[in-house]
């Protein structure tokens, strides 16, 4: 580790990222192995057999776009194209929504630029009956499971058709029909809940498993320890994903301890097998998730997966990344762009070409534009109509108790 102006002779030390604004991006710490380097362990392996998977990087797609290695899930062109379409759709949707937020159409937005494959590929590797407990950058799961885009937008603009009645900040989706649990802004709370859900599934003799996602920064929460302890103790059929996108708002992953050891390696200490995966390689994410799902479904318990990726955009519409990291850092990210990598792979297979790709992009842009037009017809946060004001007093309890009824009357609704 390089000398740091914030360490003193006594050894008090505050880690700093390799580069700040105005400095040259430096990702020399990211060790990239070739797709052949990391083998696939047996699905019933012990945690301590996964050390090399916790420190290495599971990859299928080389940066040349060629797939290889033991983890290659050997998907057919149709399946690959479907993932490409979903990654692209997520990005197109995000871009449009981000712009609309800037135009004042919604209060808040968060993009998943650069890490779309993490959600899309995992969703494709899971069964639709599996319950997901996501964080706020997995909108790709919703697209993968076929949620209506207009409904998603109605939630984000908090209009009369918002399925959450305007109670949640935009992008904090819930979609019970699609087995998509409620997103919480209190980070990591959903991680141990997912374990509880999975335990209940196993207790009822059902085959559905649970999966949850948190960020690198969130691993510092006590609930991370709670989740890993529960998952290990009760051998719960759950997949615990840490999306290491390098940044937690303005705080780099080192402040969560990421410079000392990989986030993946934390799992082994709990007795959980662990996989560290190239998160910008849709095929690797797919394969690792499949492996963990198979392990969970066959009664061998939980897996911790770290997906190594990069947050290409600001944390949300409320921060300016130019103030805490080099502006062009994403361009230097050694694992590239998940969309470009999958596209190049498909080009290499002669299953896709630039012309069709451009056509898809323009069709998706038009699809998103029309969806927003329709969503807006049900109202916007600023112009209304919203859900009825009286509904703010509903669903606090099964039935409205006297004190809330009185307060509703005080408001005059």
């Amino acid at each position, binding site marked *: 580790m390089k000398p740091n102006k914030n360490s003193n002779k006594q050894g008090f030390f505050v880690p700093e990222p390799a580069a700040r604004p105005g400095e040259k991006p430096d990702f020399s710490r990211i060790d990239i192995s070739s797709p052949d380097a990391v083998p696939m362990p047996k699905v019933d392996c012990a945690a301590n057999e996964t050390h090399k998977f916790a420190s290495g990087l599971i990859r299928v797609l080389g940066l040349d776009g060629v797939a290889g290695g033991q983890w290659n899930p050997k998907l057919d062109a149709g399946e690959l194209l479907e993932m490409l379409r979903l990654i692209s759709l997520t990005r197109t949707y995000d871009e449009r929504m981000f712009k609309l937020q800037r135009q004042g159409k919604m209060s808040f937005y968060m993009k998943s630029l650069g890490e779309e494959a993490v959600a899309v590929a995992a969703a494709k590797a899971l069964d639709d009956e599996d319950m997901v407990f996501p964080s706020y950058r997995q909108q790709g799961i919703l697209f993968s499971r076929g949620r209506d885009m207009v409904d998603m937008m109605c939630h984000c603009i908090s209009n009369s058709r918002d399925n959450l009645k305007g109670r949640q900040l935009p992008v904090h989706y819930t979609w019970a029909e699609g087995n998509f649990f*409620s997103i919480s802004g209190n980070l990591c*709370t959903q991680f*141990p*809940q997912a374990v509880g859900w999975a*335990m209940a599934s196993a*207790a009822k003799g059902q085959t559905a498993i649970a999966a949850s996602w948190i960020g690198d920064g969130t691993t510092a929460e006590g*609930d991370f320890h709670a989740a890993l*302890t529960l998952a290990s103790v009760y051998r719960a059929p759950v997949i615990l994903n840490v999306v290491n996108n390098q940044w937690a708002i303005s705080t780099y992953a080192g402040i969560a301890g990421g410079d000392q050891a990989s986030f993946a390696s934390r799992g082994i200490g709990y007795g959980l097998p662990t996989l560290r995966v190239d998160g910008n390689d849709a095929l690797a994410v797919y394969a690792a998730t499949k492996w963990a799902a198979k392990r969970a479904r066959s009664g061998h318990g939980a897996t911790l997966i770290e997906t190594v990726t990069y947050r290409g955009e600001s944390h949300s519409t409320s921060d300016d990344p130019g103030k805490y990291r080099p502006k062009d850092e994403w361009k230097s990210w050694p694992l590239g762009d998940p969309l470009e990598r999958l596209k190049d792979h498909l080009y290499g297979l002669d299953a896709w070409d630039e012309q069709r790709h451009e056509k898809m992009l323009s069709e998706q842009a038009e699809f998103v534009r029309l969806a927003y037009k329709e969503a807006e017809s049900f109202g916007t946060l600023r112009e209304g109509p919203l859900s009825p004001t009286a509904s703010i007093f509903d*669903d606090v309890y099964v039935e409205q*108790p006297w004190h809330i009824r009185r307060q509703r009357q005080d408001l005059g609704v």
Partner: protein
Amino acid sequence: MARMTMIKAINSALDNLMERDETVCSFGEDAGYFGGVFGCTEGLQEKHGLNRVFDAPINEAAIIAMAIGMASNGLRPVAEIQFSDYIFPGFDQIVSELSRIRYRTAGSFTTPVTIRTPCGGGIYGGQTHSMSPEAFFTHIPGIRVVMPSNPYDAKGMLIASVECDDPVIFFEPKRLYNGPFDGDPHKPALAWSSHEKGEVPTDHYTVSIDKAQIVRAGSELTILAYGTMVHVAQESVRVAGVDAEVIDLRTLVPYDMETIAKSVNKTGRCVVLHEAPRTSGFGAELIAQIQEDCFYALEAPVARVTGWDIPYPHAHEWAYFPGQERVIRAIKQVLEG
């Protein structure tokens, strides 16, 4: 019917619940094989199986989060937090998650979790085993907060809590586990076996978690109490020789204002009791609501007798505990006022 301590009554409630509903499960620290440090879950693992009654790691956030996850997947978990003093590592899961899942998902996910936890002092538990933290929980929209004062209510209210689709924090005043306590530590300990509320049906029944109970009808003043203080109130009234109406609130959220207002409007005088510290205690809420709803009936300022605004001391436990002397002083003050 059978003679039961509050511990046995709680045990019987869980047993009945698990017999009737296969989705009910129970877990907590030492609450599996051993049956809990107070014995509330004793024998349940043997009877209902390891998958339904089990030990949990020492992590209250984990215990409550696990319950939330299970409840969102169709189970009806009863989580035991060994002492209510220990509940705070799980506070975020209660405040930010458990209480709001129904609301923030507009009813598409619900989490009918019951959290059982012993509270209160009087057992020389020192500051880490004596707290009455109920007020923190009454400030969280979306959960019910209840506290029984006897074995009969404990069983009926626990069954009602677990069967209720709202999340419930079920406080168990641990000084009452083995017998009623009138606030005088120098008397020999009393047993539930000679108390009418120690007579408990062995079968399933419920006690409303919406209704207070008038445990002594009276005309001169109203005393509002819950948990251990219900018994202190009754004995203080007897010693003072006044005709007080003593109301056992039983449920703090939503509290039964109808019963309270009816009584205070009748007596015109009121004393509020709790063992928890005074400032921002639940008494503050009760008194505020009483002055809103009963102001013109009041003949004197409402008084409150509470624990002090200090941590619960060990050696000087009885200097902290709001015993009969303090209650009687308040009764006299309100009657003279």
